């Protein structure tokens, strides 16, 4: 099992799949440079650079998928999907139903998300809640290299639209591009196990919608995604020192949610804390609360998310995004219930 960075793992999985399946094509802005290794390996027909026309080229992905290709369409940052939202909301996710189940759209939207590097509120959003509120789309949010590789394969095998979200803080080239790498004067709070790790080769898919218990515990369960998982693990360590055993669940998919894992873990620990880098309201924490409640579970419940616009100032940003200290605090409050 070779060691790879998070970004290498994704492109490795993509390369593996492209070598096997000639229907896979990749397009988006700047992909010749961003995916230069795939470009050199697979050529200009399969890795193609677009104009800054997200609305047109995301819908082009929908059409191409209907026509039999397996497009991987890159939206550089998930924030920008707003200009192309129609392709997801009214086309990609509707066509299986509209055609009476006769036509499907195997489209992978690859995008980056998340903050922690000081870009401010228009470039650091997560939006997995917003996207998951549409029926008909799956949303994968890997938190480490192995998951990133395997979830990419899962996405490429999906017969329906999926959004694959790469967390910028875990991806070396994004950290580098977005104001990091060329200077030694900034340091980001990058979770080591998210940044780099062993990846099994050949990469195998993980089942869609399945999360994973990444830390066992009896006193409360933390549910999270992406970088949040690492923040939870950090908090769990601290809580352990205080005699609290926190379970940490990496949901891996914002949609479909792993209802079984959510209910079974919550039932066991009796306390639930949702840690969500995305906006709190109308999001992951709400959906988890509803899943618990409609299954008749009544754990103590708390949630930590991003409230409102993410500030530019890195000091305030660090306080606004869920961090280990805030998680610890929230968990202590919950544990005392």
């Amino acid at each position, binding site marked *: 099992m070779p060691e790879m960075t998070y970004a290498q793992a994704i492109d490795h999985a993509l390369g593996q799949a492209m070598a096997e399946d000639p229907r896979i094509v990749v397009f988006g802005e700047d992909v010749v440079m961003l995916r230069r290794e795939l470009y050199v390996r697979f050529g200009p027909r399969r890795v193609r650079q677009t104009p800054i026309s997200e609305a047109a080229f995301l819908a082009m992905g929908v059409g*191409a998928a209907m026509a039999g290709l397996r497009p991987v369409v890159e939206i550089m940052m998930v924030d920008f999907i707003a200009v192309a939202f129609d392709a997801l909301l009214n086309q990609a996710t509707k066509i299986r139903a509209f055609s009476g*189940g006769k*036509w499907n759209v195997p489209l992978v939207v690859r995008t980056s998300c998340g903050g922690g590097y000081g870009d401010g509120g228009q470039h650091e959003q997560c939006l997995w809640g917003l996207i998951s509120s549409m029926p008909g789309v799956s949303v994968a949010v890997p938190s480490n290299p192995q998951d990133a590789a395997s979830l990419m394969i899962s996405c490429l095998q999906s017969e329906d639209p999926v959004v694959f979200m790469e967390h910028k803080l875990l991806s070396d080239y994004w950290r580098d591009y977005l104001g990091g790498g060329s200077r030694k004067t900034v340091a980001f709070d990058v979770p080591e196990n998210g940044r780099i790790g062993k990846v099994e080769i050949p990469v195998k898919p993980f089942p869609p919608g399945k999360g994973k218990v990444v830390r066992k515990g009896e006193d409360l369960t933390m549910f999270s995604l992406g970088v949040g998982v690492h923040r939870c693990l950090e908090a769990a360590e601290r809580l352990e020192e205080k005699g609290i055993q926190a379970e940490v669940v990496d949901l891996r998919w914002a949609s479909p949610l792993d209802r079984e894992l959510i209910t079974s873990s919550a039932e066991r620990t009796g306390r639930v804390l949702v840690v969500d880098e995305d906006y709190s309201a109308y999001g992951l924490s709400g959906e988890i609360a509803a899943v618990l409640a409609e299954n008749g579970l009544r754990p103590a419940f708390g949630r930590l998310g991003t409230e409102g616009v993410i500030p530019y100032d890195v000091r305030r940003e660090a306080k606004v995004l869920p961090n280990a200290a805030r998680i610890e605090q929230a968990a202590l409050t919950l544990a005392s219930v």
Partner: protein
Amino acid sequence: MRMSAETVPVEELYRQMCRAREFEMALARLWEKGLISGEMHLGIGEEAVAAGVVAHLREGDAICLDHRSTPPLVARGVDLEALVLEMLGDPEGLCCGWGGHMHLFSREHLACSSGIVGSSAPLGLGFALASQYLETGGVAVAFFGEGAMNQGMLLESLNLAAAWRLPLVLVCKDNRWAITTRSRTVTAGNLARRARSLGVPARRVDGTRVDRVWRAARWAVERARRGRGPSFLLAHCPRREGHFLGDPMLRVYRDPLGQVLEIAPPLLRSLLARPLSRLASRVRCLGQIGATLGALGLELLLEADPLERSGRLLEPSMRARVEEEARREVEEKVMRAMERRVSRA
């Protein structure tokens, strides 16, 4: 590029036009009876454009349609019974009753549609890309109205099709109206030039003359098939049944008294709303509304019916035969669909 008239398959084209017309008139009757739900946009007036373009397509070619999708689907050979049943919301319909008239899909014909104005063009890019990539020699055709030419994703698509040299034919059905808006009042410049400036060669054509549409479309489709990239057809055609069935603006003509009694009193109240300032301006606005209605009425009176104009290309007896055949075919299919529906209800 000009070819002699003989090569135009006028009979076949006219047959497709008649089939589309008969079919949509049947739909209108079903709609009036309350058997079809929702907004029903007919393509009556667009038959020559549909027939003239679709005639050039072969297996593996794709069509991406807007909210007036019936005529191209009929011309493309989609099963009429399945279409009727779909309109009725029947599980045996083309889309099992899930899509309805704004969302008709036939995978077998690579035909899709969408009620979001402008979205047919970028969806068409996708089919064109697949043809280019798989080297099938296939082309994609996107149909849309002149109102859609102000929708960003459509403008983006023109550029992208040109930049990537995609085999896409963009067909703009210019009926001058977008619902109640006269498109020229909100559209700057001219649409053929607009397409050209985005890198797509364009031709204008009289969309009521199927022979002309056919010739222009041949140019466009052949270009695409030979890998020479996208093209744009601007086809003028009338909007004979208003924006949708039951169009309130059309009702003003068809039921003037009823409508005026309904529309006028609140307008009068507005005219006289206190404070009674700016009366002159108010009168002008009322006049503007009248002028818009007037323009619509005038067009209804003056604009040619494509069936009239294109029918003249055939000699009368043949024309009558083609019309009769189309009428019978459609009648039969609709009847059979209704029977299937009833027997299962």
